[in-house]
């Protein structure tokens, strides 16, 4: 059940997409997502899909695996779809029975919004699947570094992200173990109304918090024992470097964005 979450999971590999600089990948992913939000017709989404598909093929990840990452979010997507469908105002009615009014504009909006969410998830998944958490936070720290001039805690933020990412699998594993241990004692996490279910979480949450605090404490000690004092004057083992691959990636993305803009002008 917890194994279904692919968002935030790294898929090790040695493809050109893997080898790109994390900073460039971050920037391009943001560009891609912003682009998706400006697309206003179906051919545009086909273009977005084609671009994503090519990138995924180059990265060597199976497209199915990427789609699996959307599954845990299907309810949120369905929810926004329905919300848009019923509450967006429009002029051309499609269905008009009793209190149900659905307009053509609402349907269009609902579909596009759902598509945007799906592309958002898939786009970020490509980033996280091809970039190790270490590289990702490194890239983020470097991108945010200029903001340190205005006292933005870029290093601290990156360190917190690194630690959080590092402990997500550990905590998931721990949750799984404790849940099973309580189920072995007859606990039932699946049935009952909201209140009994919330109560059933106590035997899971208490041990989880106890262990999370213990781990945090141990980690803090280990970091102090190795003289960690924050970001100033820290050198790094691997310096980030832009390569030719990053130029290609950037060019491809620019071409793609241009295509979308042109397509939007022509058809939208």
């Amino acid at each position, binding site marked *: 059940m917890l194994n279904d979450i692919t968002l935030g999971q790294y898929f090790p590999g040695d493809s050109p997409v893997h080898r790109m600089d994390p900073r460039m990948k971050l920037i391009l992913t943001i560009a891609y997502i912003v682009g998706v939000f400006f697309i206003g017709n179906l051919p545009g989404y086909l273009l977005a899909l084609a671009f994503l598909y090519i990138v995924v093929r180059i990265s060597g990840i199976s497209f199915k695996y990427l789609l*699996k990452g959307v599954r845990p979010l299907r309810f949120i997507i369905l929810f926004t779809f329905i919300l848009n469908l019923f509450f967006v105002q429009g002029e051309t009615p499609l269905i008009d029975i009793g209190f149900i009014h659905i307009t053509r504009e609402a349907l269009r909006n609902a579909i596009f919004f759902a598509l945007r969410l799906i592309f958002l998830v898939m786009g970020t998944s490509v980033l996280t699947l091809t970039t190790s958490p270490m590289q990702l936070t490194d890239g983020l720290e470097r991108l945010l570094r200029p903001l340190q001039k205005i006292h933005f805690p870029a290093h601290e933020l990156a360190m917190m992200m690194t630690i959080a990412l590092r402990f997500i699998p550990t905590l998931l594993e721990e949750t799984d173990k404790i849940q099973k241990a309580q189920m*072995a004692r*007859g606990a039932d996490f699946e049935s009952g109304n909201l209140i009994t279910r919330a109560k059933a979480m106590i035997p899971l949450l208490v*041990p989880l918090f106890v262990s999370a605090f213990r781990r945090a404490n141990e980690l803090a000690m280990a970091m102090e024992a190795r003289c960690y004092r924050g970001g100033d004057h820290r050198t790094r083992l691997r310096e980030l470097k832009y390569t030719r691959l990053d130029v290609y990636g950037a060019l491809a993305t620019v071409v793609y964005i241009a295509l979308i803009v042109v397509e939007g002008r022509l058809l939208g």
Partner: protein
Amino acid sequence: MPIVIEHLNYVYMSGGPYETHALDDVSLTIEDGEFVGLIGHTGSGKSTLVQHLNGLLLPTSGTITVDGLNIADKATDRRAIRRKVGLVFQYPENQLFEETVEKDIAFGPKNLGLDDAEIARRVKGAMRKVALDYDALHERSVFELSGGQMRRVAIAGVLAMEPRTLVLDEPCAGLDPRGREEILGLIRDLHRDTGATIVMVSHSMDDVASLAERVIVMNHGRVAMDGAPREVFSRGAELRAIGLDVPQAVLLADKLRERGFDVPQGVYRVEEIKAVIEGIVGKGARAC
């Protein structure tokens, strides 16, 4: 009724980059009243196997029947199976959560829907079985106890469900030698006094040698050996080939044989080797 495992396979994270084939065509029958030692090095699939015995994991393929009930069957009440097969996880003290020792041990019986008098009886009984003093400890917070005590509270929490089969996943992991002896002692007593079926997972040959009547050796998700301890421990070279040791007593017996002493084959318990050595040095030595 026995637990029958047939052609069991289990795959973790099927299809992903970290897909692991943890169990590979495992077939076993665990008879009533047996004391089974399950050994294998880390990652050999022991924990995965035992989590199938009470339906916490369901087979990727193959079947497991407990008391004639197929655990993967939709119609099977898995909670009923968990009442027959108690599972003590590795580091079970991590699952403690209640305010007091008594409440924590009562968690299992409460989930079974028993009445208060029966719950109280079971809590007291379980604490006696793990040698915890009810009067002194039942109102204490579980988080104030020592490591060894916490472990025993956790074991009591499973015993209070009064399962007929008790499965323990590395019950001695992380304990000091004395804590280890205590836990092993209470498992032995439990088996002797209640006749419960016991499956004890361990990677310590000596723990298994001192208790088990049958030893199952796992390697890379497969059953590598299955038989009486005497038989399994006589296959020292094979055990070493899959990264396991033989019990100390067997090592000592081998060394003595090398030196030309006459040590009978199949010696594997500390008491046995002790008797042999006493035989060698003669009766006079016992006085020392």
